[in-house]
């Protein structure tokens, strides 16, 4: 049984209220202690984490690893290397893979691909409806038994509210979490940009905030009606934050996340027709960005996800509206979170919690903390290290990021997953 000791690091473990310099002891893939040295502990490996931060490994609530029918974009092998380099030790895989995660066979295939890539902690989110078509319920119980951690319909619409209601009731019957990206498809009107001044100036098809907030409001009503646990993903605007805040105050059991780029970029940052800025939901206004940050600070939004979507070059090569949306964002997750801290939007402890303890709570996982007995998922990073986003430093097969070429602060030096070192800088 491999024994590892991580020395001299600043241990930040929000779930246990810990922020101290010390050592973490790992044995048999589990955390032994993050406080006192276990009796007779003789490590096989010692990691010197001086001037670095030692925290729970990050749990990403929304990512695409492509592969299978999308292997030209990326593969599990390429993307789990990116995840490991980003300090991410568990990934929720959205169900819009090719083929869709709507049968146990696909869940098994994903487990197999993850194991072959030496990164077992890939959690499949099962399709809420068959083929994500939004009309018939998927076999949610079978999907859960096969290992799906939640259900959702990714970016695809559910045909009507009656079907959504039934899907939520059925999910609730099996105590399944529903992950929901609120978007009214009709109001969205195939937009590729925020309905605002920039889309108006450039004549881009646009989507109003109401496409998100109306779908969100409807789903909140159904959450109350059905008792389904709902996690809202990738919120993008002020009024969504207000609605979640009100719902929580009212006592609904809901949670929410935001994609990391929404906390930094607005429509005004978009370069003319640069497809790297083509994301869904679209980049919105400065006010929306400030509300999303505020939502994190007060805990209305409890998690930050990468919403990682690697693409091949061709997918981003074309006139803006014709390109595919999405950012390759695993590797910028930590530096962009740290930037929120340096800009005083949130504290470092909050930032780490949004990437570990809080998503673990959403998923009801026994991880996201350095609690003795938990899986030894650990991220060690140097908060002061500058690095440039370029091909020498980049692991993901997708280079579609608006941060390409920029110098960012904060880099992961070691990542441990279940006690195994899966990344070392």
């Amino acid at each position, binding site marked *: 049984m491999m024994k590892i000791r991580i020395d001299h690091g600043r241990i930040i473990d929000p779930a246990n209220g810990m922020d101290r310099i010390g050592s973490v002891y790992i044995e048999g893939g589990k955390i032994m202690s993050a406080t006192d040295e276990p009796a007779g502990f003789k490590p096989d490996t010692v990691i010197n984490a001086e001037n670095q931060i030692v925290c729970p490994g990050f749990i990403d609530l929304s990512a695409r690893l492509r592969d299978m029918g999308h292997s030209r974009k990326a593969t599990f092998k390429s993307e789990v290397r990116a995840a490991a380099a980003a300090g991410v030790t568990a990934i929720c895989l959205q169900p819009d893979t090719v083929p869709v995660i709507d049968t146990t066979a696909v869940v098994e295939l994903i487990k197999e691909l993850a194991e072959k890539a030496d990164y077992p902690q890939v959690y499949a989110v099962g399709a809420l409806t068959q083929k994500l078509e939004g009309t018939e319920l998927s076999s949610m119980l079978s999907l859960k038994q096969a290992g799906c951690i939640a259900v959702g319909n990714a970016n695809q619409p559910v045909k009507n509210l009656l079907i959504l209601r039934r899907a939520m009731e059925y999910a609730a019957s099996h105590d399944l979490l529903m992950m929901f990206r609120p978007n009214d498809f009709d109001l969205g009107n195939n937009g590729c940009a925020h309905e605002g001044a920039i889309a108006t100036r450039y*004549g*881009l098809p646009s989507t109003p905030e109401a496409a998100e907030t109306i779908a969100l409001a409807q789903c909140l009503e159904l959450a109350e009606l059905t008792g389904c646990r709902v996690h809202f993903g990738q919120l993008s605007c002020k009024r969504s934050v207000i609605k979640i805040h009100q719902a929580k105050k009212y006592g609904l059991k809901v949670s929410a996340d935001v994609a990391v780029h929404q906390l930094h970029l607005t429509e005004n940052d978009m370069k003319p027709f640069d497809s790297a800025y083509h994301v869904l939901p679209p980049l919105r206004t400065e006010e929306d960005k400030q509300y999303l940050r505020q939502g994190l600070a007060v805990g209305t939004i409890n998690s930050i996800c990468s919403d990682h979507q690697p693409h091949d070059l061709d997918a981003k090569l*074309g006139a*803006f509206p014709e390109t595919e949306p999405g950012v390759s964002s695993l590797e910028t997750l930590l530096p962009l979170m740290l930037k929120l801290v340096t800009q005083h939007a949130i504290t470092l402890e909050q930032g780490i919690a949004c990437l570990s303890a809080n998503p673990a709570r959403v998923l009801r996982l026994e991880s996201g903390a350095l609690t003795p007995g938990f899986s030894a998922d650990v991220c060690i990073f140097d908060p002061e290290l500058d690095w440039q986003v370029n091909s020498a430093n980049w692991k993901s097969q997708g280079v579609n990021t608006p941060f390409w070429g920029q110098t960012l602060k904060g880099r992961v030096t070691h990542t441990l997953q279940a006690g195994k070192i899966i990344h070392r800088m």
Partner: protein
Amino acid sequence: MTDNLQLNAEGKLKHFLTIEGLSKSLLTEILDTAESFAGMSEHQVKKVPLLRGKTIVNLFFENSTRTRTTFELAATRLSADVINMNIATSATSKGESLLDTIRNLEAMFVDMFVVRHAISGAAHFIAQQTAPHISVINAGDGQHAHPTQAMLDMFTIRQLKPDFSSLRVAIIGDILHSRVARSEIQALNTLGAAEVRVIAPKTLLPAHVESLGVSVSHNLTEGLKDIDVVMMLRLQKERMSSALLPSESEYFKCFGLTEEKLKIAKPDAIVMHPGPINRGVEIDSKVADGPQSVILKQVSNGIAVRMAIMAMAMQKQVA
């Protein structure tokens, strides 16, 4: 968000993609250059040898008779060789990507692309991707820009009303879907027009339209007060089926330009339309063919203005 893609290191026109980011002096230079070509059409010999030996490809991914014809005539009068490609019916329908179409044509040693495309940003994309010696002229991209139309309209206005700073201009109709309107607004504001007013129902106005530098009216009779230039926009039939408007007749009743409504504008107001016009939908025939209409003048001016833009964009090659 600035846009220097269309200027070279010396600040000269390299591509002509949008009015945005171009200076008043550059727009004025285009108008002055067009002026020098304008008399030519009446000459016996209608050609100058400015672009002799140059190859211009009219790359039309969207059908257009008038714009393509005036570009073709403009290129011919500059003595360039012109190839017309209607891609709507050729390469891309075989699955070839926009980029591959461009690469193939580049390999045939062309000097300029004149591009019309149904997607906003297509001309920018081509200008970014194409070989550095090739100039790209935007002949209309999606709902984004139609800068040569805007310039020929500025040219027409200047012939009749030379002082932009005293002008109040109304643009009436489907602003939301109109690349012409966006370019007209930018050109008028750059040239210092006193006011640009858009008049349309809310369903045909884009979000935050006032951010483009316009005042807004939803009522034609109120909106036409004190107006020197009335610009009508074409109303596409599909606006009715997509629930943006109830019917053509109701639209005509509210926003159609009739002789009576035109009287609300200044007595010497001119009436413009980028064409093709829908008689009885956005404009009454009596107005379209009436004494205040300059619609056909716009068409004739299209040739001189496009000659000027092509010649200026190719200057670096010609010199």
